[in-house]
């Protein structure tokens, strides 16, 4: 056993002292959180100062358009040509011209002149207001109170509750996207560390040091030491990455989510009020969160996820899935002389992983389908598919069964891989076929 310890130690040391490995461990979480921050930043509306001069020939919008903290509006009765002529040298950033026939519609009914292209958010902001004013105006023209229309419109949120055998219900948190991300991460991790085992085995073979080592330890011990060493390395990396990511995302969420959670609180209070008092609530006094509903939904779903459960499951499935696949990878690594020969073996191993990945995309649409269920039970795909299901809430017995079968299969694949491995590492020069691998299983 102490020899396996030595092998594990060497495996970890050789990677830990590797600069690329260290850089990757630190850089990957930075890149991921950086990417998320970038995405959030991109969706945030650009807050460029806009000074708009409005030429309203329809006389419909005067003093009805509202600005905000970065958009200010002024009105003028200037002629269009005159205003355009002067526009470049006056202090306004945009010139909004509204035709007298805007209510009748038609293209070109309104024009926005600019010096520097105004952002999409700004355009939408102006356009939405104009549409609302025209809408209300038309309603009024037909003697309809816009408030009636507004109050009669109601968003419906469909809450899914699952009833279990004890008649207890629980709210289903079908956050498919989160599951999909977990599944994809699992896929990446298994493949990454599986390939690490593959390379490490092949390196020893092509270096021709393996024969010296197997004269000191049993080939199976060498293979196991290698697999366990890289597993430990993976856990170390996983934990370090986890801590860095957690730290960064916490920092990030305090920056970005502070406003959101305050708004969410107000929103919740308003919802309570509406529930109690019905439509008699004065809606004009309530803050409007129409554009925030999706974000609220996201935050709610994230809050409902049991991150500890997800983390523990991810850890267990990573270990199980890694061990399962890495022993196969070790067997393959022993059978080839160079990376270019390895493709014919790696592709068939990639296929079940890819299938797992595709099933995990199905989880988003149809989390309770039979495909998804079996995908999360069969060891070839279970780590990926189960991770995509886990945030939806999976009964404990299913997790237990799937993990048990995964770990039992690991013993089987390792045993078989060991048989291929001990023959493979000493075979040189011959191009190996699948048939050959099958024969090696039966050598004494």
């Amino acid at each position, binding site marked *: 056993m102490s*020899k396996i310890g*030595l*092998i594990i130690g*060497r495996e970890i040391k*050789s990677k830990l002292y590797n600069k690329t490995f260290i850089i990757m461990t630190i850089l990957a979480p930075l890149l991921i959180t950086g990417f998320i921050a970038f995405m959030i930043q991109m969706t945030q509306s650009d807050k460029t100062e806009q000074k708009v001069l409005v030429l309203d020939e329809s006389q419909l919008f005067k003093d009805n358009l509202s600005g905000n903290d970065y958009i200010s509006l002024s009105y003028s009765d200037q002629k269009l040509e005159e205003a355009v002529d002067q526009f470049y040298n006056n202090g306004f950033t945009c010139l909004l011209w509204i035709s007298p026939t805007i209510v009748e519609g038609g293209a070109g009914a309104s024009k926005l002149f600019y010096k520097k292209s105004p952002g999409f958010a700004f355009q939408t902001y102006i356009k939405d207001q104009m549409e609302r004013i025209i809408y209300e105006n038309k309603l009024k023209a037909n003697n309809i109170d816009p408030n009636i229309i507004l109050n009669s419109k109601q968003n419906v949120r469909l809450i899914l509750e699952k009833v279990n055998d004890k008649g207890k219900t629980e709210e289903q948190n079908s956050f498919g996207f989160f599951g999909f991300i977990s599944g994809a991460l699992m896929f990446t991790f298994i493949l990454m560390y599986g390939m690490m085992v593959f390379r490490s085995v092949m*390196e*020893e073979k092509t*270096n*021709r*040091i393996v*024969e*010296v*080592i*197997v*004269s*000191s*330890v*049993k*080939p199976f011990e060498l293979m196991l030491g290698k697999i366990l060493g890289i597993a430990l390395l993976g856990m170390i990396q996983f934990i370090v990455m986890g801590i860095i990511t957690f730290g960064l995302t916490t920092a990030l969420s305090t920056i970005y989510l502070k406003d959101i959670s305050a708004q969410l609180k107000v929103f919740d209070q308003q919802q309570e009020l509406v529930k109690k008092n019905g439509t008699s609530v004065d809606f004009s006094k309530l803050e409007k969160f129409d554009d925030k509903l999706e974000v609220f939904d996201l935050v709610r779903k994230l809050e409902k996820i049991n991150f500890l459960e997800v983390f523990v499951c991810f850890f267990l499935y990573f270990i199980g899935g890694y061990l399962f696949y890495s022993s196969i990878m070790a067997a393959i690594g022993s059978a080839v002389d160079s990376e270019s020969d390895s493709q014919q073996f790696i592709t068939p191993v990639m296929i079940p992983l890819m299938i797992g990945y595709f099933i995990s995309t199905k989880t988003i649409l149809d989390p309770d389908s039979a495909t998804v269920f079996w995908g999360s039970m069969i060891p070839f795909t279970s780590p990926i598919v189960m991770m995509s299901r886990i945030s939806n809430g999976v009964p404990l017995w299913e997790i237990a069964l799937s993990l048990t079968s995964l770990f039992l299969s690991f013993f089987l694949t390792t045993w078989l891989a060991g048989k291929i491995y*001990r023959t493979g590492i*000493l075979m*040189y020069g011959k191009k190996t076929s699948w048939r050959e691998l099958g*024969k090696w299983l039966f*050598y*004494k």
Partner: protein
Amino acid sequence: MAEILRIQQVSKRYSNHVALNEVSLNVQEKSVFGLLGPNGAGKTSLIRIINQITGPDSGEIIFKGHKLGADDVEHIGYLPEERGLYKKMTVADQVLYLARLKGLSKWEAKKRIRHWFEKFEIKDWSNKKIEELSKGMQQKVQFIVTVIHEPELLILDEPFSGFDPINAQLIKNEILELKKNGATVIFSTHNMGSVEELCDHIALLNKAEKILDGAVKEIRKTYRSNTYKISFKGSAMGFANTLWTGGEVLEKHTEDDVHSFTIKLVPQLSSSAFLQAVLPGCELLSFNEIIPSMNDIFIQKVNEGNEVFGTKSNYTD
């Protein structure tokens, strides 16, 4: 002398060929044992079985009186034919790792590393990565790895292939020194010169079978063919007449008045009887028996074997 290793009817088959067919050998303690044979004869298969890298299909290996087991690897040192090291690991780390795999404590291993590195003059290189070393230096490191745990049995597969002459000499001297210190050495080689120089005993394998074994001196004696080289002054004609019924002339050479004959005597004629017959007629300058070299024996035996198996190709080396 006690025997350190006994191989009993060991067989090994692969799916499409037989690597070893009921091979039995005895290796005496504190001797140098040569394992000879053409390529593909089964030498490496046998060596791997002794190193427990693969198992025999049948047969037994007895090491120091007991059945060879997992613990015995600590008493065996192995230098494979295809040898390499971790390219990215430093020399010292590498030797330490491999020594500890052979069961040495960290402290003991470090002490011996210091000794060997000084002896082989590679101390300054201990913190260099293997890939930065010249091939000759890598070979030195490989040899140190093989012997650092002071094995009682040292197995060297083609130790002189790939070594430059200086390193080969270094290894030869080390082998002899290790033998003097009580180690037993088994080595496989094609280099017959080194066999005669180093080996006490040999076994010759061909086509998975042992076709010859024994002490080198004994084998060469057995393969004596009553052939002699004689130089004399005097009448070559008279000499030939004396020889007439006693043997045949294989080669003759004359320089000035000195005649040199290589002759093969008939088995019933002893060399002394022959000398008594020729001495009266000539002035004898030298008389030597020609003992066949291991190389000759090797080629002869392997070709005999091949004829039995019906192959036509002759082994020449």
